């Protein structure tokens, strides 16, 4: 029984990471209607940036926030420099850019930082067992951090003028221009935010899976499964989907398929959702009268 409870709690902790990456995927998807395949590689690069700062003796939380800021700038720059020139190009061009970005960022990370696996510190240490030994300090701390990030993003989109403008630009760029919104900058801002969220996810997951240039590959698949499960056009759905995939993956790994085949669960979810309910569990069907 204790084992089951622990698997669920650990699933929620990794689910939080997936939820953050799912949310980043959905944010880009809403703005561009494509999935950014390079999301994981960008997050890995961010994590390496944080790692080198910490190695250089900069305190963890300073490095943490500096990395978020740097990642935001990188994300916005990618939109400005790479996506903007092809914004009116056909779908395959975008997919090509995403895949190119994945290869370039992934290999550049390996080239700069090397392919040896590195230890990434956690800021959450505790000698006392938490919740009766059910959960590690890092699991608890990283869940709290991802929940905080997700709530901040939610509040930003729901209750600020800029958040509303970003949603308007994503839903209907033409009308957004008519009310004076600078749509190009909203897209860049969206990419920056997505990269920043990805960076948090990378820094929270690195102490668990260890840091190397391919660290996010599996995570991205789980996150993609989570985003699809919740509905690729629904940010809150993606978050719930991410948590659900985390728990499912952990339970399936512990009791059904074994750890070796865990990734298969993600792929099975992706195919299952696409076949049975392509809009996902919470994918909103927008009503419109014509």
């Amino acid at each position, binding site marked *: 029984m204790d084992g089951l409870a622990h698997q669920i709690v650990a699933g929620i902790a990794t689910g939080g990471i997936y939820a953050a990456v799912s949310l980043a995927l959905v944010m880009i998807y809403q703005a561009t209607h494509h999935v950014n395949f390079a999301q994981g590689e960008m997050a890995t690069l961010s994590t390496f940036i944080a790692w080198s700062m910490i190695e250089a003796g900069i305190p963890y939380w300073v490095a943490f926030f500096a990395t978020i800021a740097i990642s935001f700038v990188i994300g916005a720059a990618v939109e400005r420099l790479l996506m903007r020139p092809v914004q009116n190009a056909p779908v395959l061009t975008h997919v090509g850019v995403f895949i190119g970005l994945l290869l370039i960022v992934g290999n550049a990370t390996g080239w700069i930082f090397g392919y040896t696996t590195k230890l990434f510190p956690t800021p959450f240490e505790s000698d006392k067992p938490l919740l009766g030994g059910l959960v590690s300090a890092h699991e608890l701390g990283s869940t709290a951090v991802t929940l905080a990030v997700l709530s901040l993003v939610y509040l930003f989109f729901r209750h600020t*003028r800029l958040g*509303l*403008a970003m949603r*308007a630009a994503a839903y209907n760029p033409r009308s957004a221009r*008519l*009310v*004076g919104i600078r749509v190009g900058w909203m897209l860049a801002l969206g990419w920056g935010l997505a990269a920043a969220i990805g960076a948090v996810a990378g820094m929270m997951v690195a102490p668990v899976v260890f840091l190397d240039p391919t660290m996010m590959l599996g995570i991205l698949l789980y996150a993609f499964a989570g985003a699809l499960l919740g509905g690729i056009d629904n940010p809150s759905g993606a978050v719930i989907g991410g948590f659900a995939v985390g728990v499912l993956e952990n339970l399936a790994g512990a009791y059904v398929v074994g750890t070796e085949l865990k990734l298969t669960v993600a792929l099975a979810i992706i195919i299952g959702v696409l076949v049975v309910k392509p809009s996902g569990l919470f994918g909103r069907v*927008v*009503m419109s*009268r014509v």
Partner: protein
Amino acid sequence: MPALLEAKGLTAGYGAAPVLHGLDFEVEEGGVTALLGANGAGKTTTLRAVCGMVRTTGEIRLGGQSIAGRATEDIARLGLAHVPDGRGTFMELTVEENFRLGAYVRRDREVQADFERMWEWFPRLRQRWRQQAGTLSGGEQQMLAIARALLLRPRLLLLDEPSFGLAPLIVQEIFAIMRRIREESGVGILLVEQNANLALELADRAYLLETGRIVVAGPAAELREDEAIRRSYLGY
């Protein structure tokens, strides 16, 4: 004093094919100008040209300031609001959010007062306040589109066929509101309308477009009396 909107030798088109062949027209400060014409005459393209949604040549001045070739969002910030064909509301967002977006560029403190004014002009929108705009009826969506545009506090309002696809009673209601807007707000209006009767009743100036050229221009009252227009567009 220059007119609120002044176009001289305005051409525009999609790709290589020009749609407008050198239009000259004006909207007076606080006046209503109607653009009439058959389908495909270039009415919608004229509105798109004014707010920078298509490539243009020629001169366009808003309050004496040249706006030709500027980005749509910059033109909006200069006080030009457009209710395009298809209305340009945000279907996925609520009525309230559409209101807020209408006033997006404004920094003054009178936004709330303007919300209240819109509620008075369009009481139905207040009842639908938290509803998703896509679920409104066609008439309510058109009202929302006009309210959204007026919340910019524009100097000039472009309206593309506000009667399109609506039941006659709803059309009457919308034109009644537009007469009120004209009297109470002092905004200039450039109106494209299939229903020439209604348009000429509201307008003080009118132009008749045929295949991208202005063929008749003058005070609305005169065009109402024009034999050719009466037969072709007014139907009596």
